[in-house]
């Protein structure tokens, strides 16, 4: 990976700034940037969420985000910049909790597919947990993916 292919990896308590991430990943060769952002969903069917509180095993989460960026580059060799940012702490409904950003020269160069792959993997292997605050109390949400050898 050359310095012309930026990789931004962050676990942060600060609000996610999509404009800044777009600028950070875009190289002069890029004409297309795909950004995925997860947000705090306030309504899931009839269930209301007020707030999500995220906790990370920071050192391992950073290592796993770096691993995901490598997996993305291996699978989608035409992409250039990558940003993988997870916010931690308390977040309100509508706020971005995570961002997966990918740049490429053209929209058909795999940026859409790489961003989708990145968020799928992030939800599988990055040690982050969320506690949901509902009108009737709060509870930890558990994922259902069990890591396999090589994850």
């Amino acid at each position, binding site marked *: 990976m050359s310095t012309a292919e930026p990789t931004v990896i962050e676990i942060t308590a600060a609000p996610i700034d999509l404009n800044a991430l777009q600028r950070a990943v875009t190289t002069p060769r890029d004409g297309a940037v795909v950004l995925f952002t997860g947000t705090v969903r306030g309504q899931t069917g009839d269930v209301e969420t007020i707030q999500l509180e995220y906790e990370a095993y920071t050192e391992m989460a950073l290592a796993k985000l770096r691993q995901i960026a490598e997996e993305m580059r291996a699978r989608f060799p035409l992409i250039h910049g990558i940003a993988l940012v997870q916010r931690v702490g308390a977040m309100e409904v509508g706020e971005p909790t995570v961002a997966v950003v990918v740049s490429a020269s053209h929209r058909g160069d795999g940026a859409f597919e790489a961003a989708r792959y990145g968020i799928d993997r992030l939800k*599988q292997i990055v040690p982050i947990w969320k506690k949901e605050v509902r009108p009737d109390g709060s509870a930890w949400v558990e*994922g259902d993916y069990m890591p396999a050898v090589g994850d």
Partner: protein
Amino acid sequence: MKVKLFATLKERAGAPEIVLQGAATTVAEVRQRIAEQYPHLAALAARSIVAVNHQFAFDADPVHPDDEIALFPPVSGG
């Protein structure tokens, strides 16, 4: 030997870390020590994930005294 805890496990233990008495040379032994020495964590620990030095670890994997060991539920980031 110290074990870092996260999410539900940390909450149940009331601490971000527990200390295991006696040696454990594999992940399976770590799980066994936790079940013996922290019975209130046993049920949760059985369906939790073990990481050694920031990598997922499985029952047969070796552990060394200076490894960073962590126990946590299936992840739910994003």
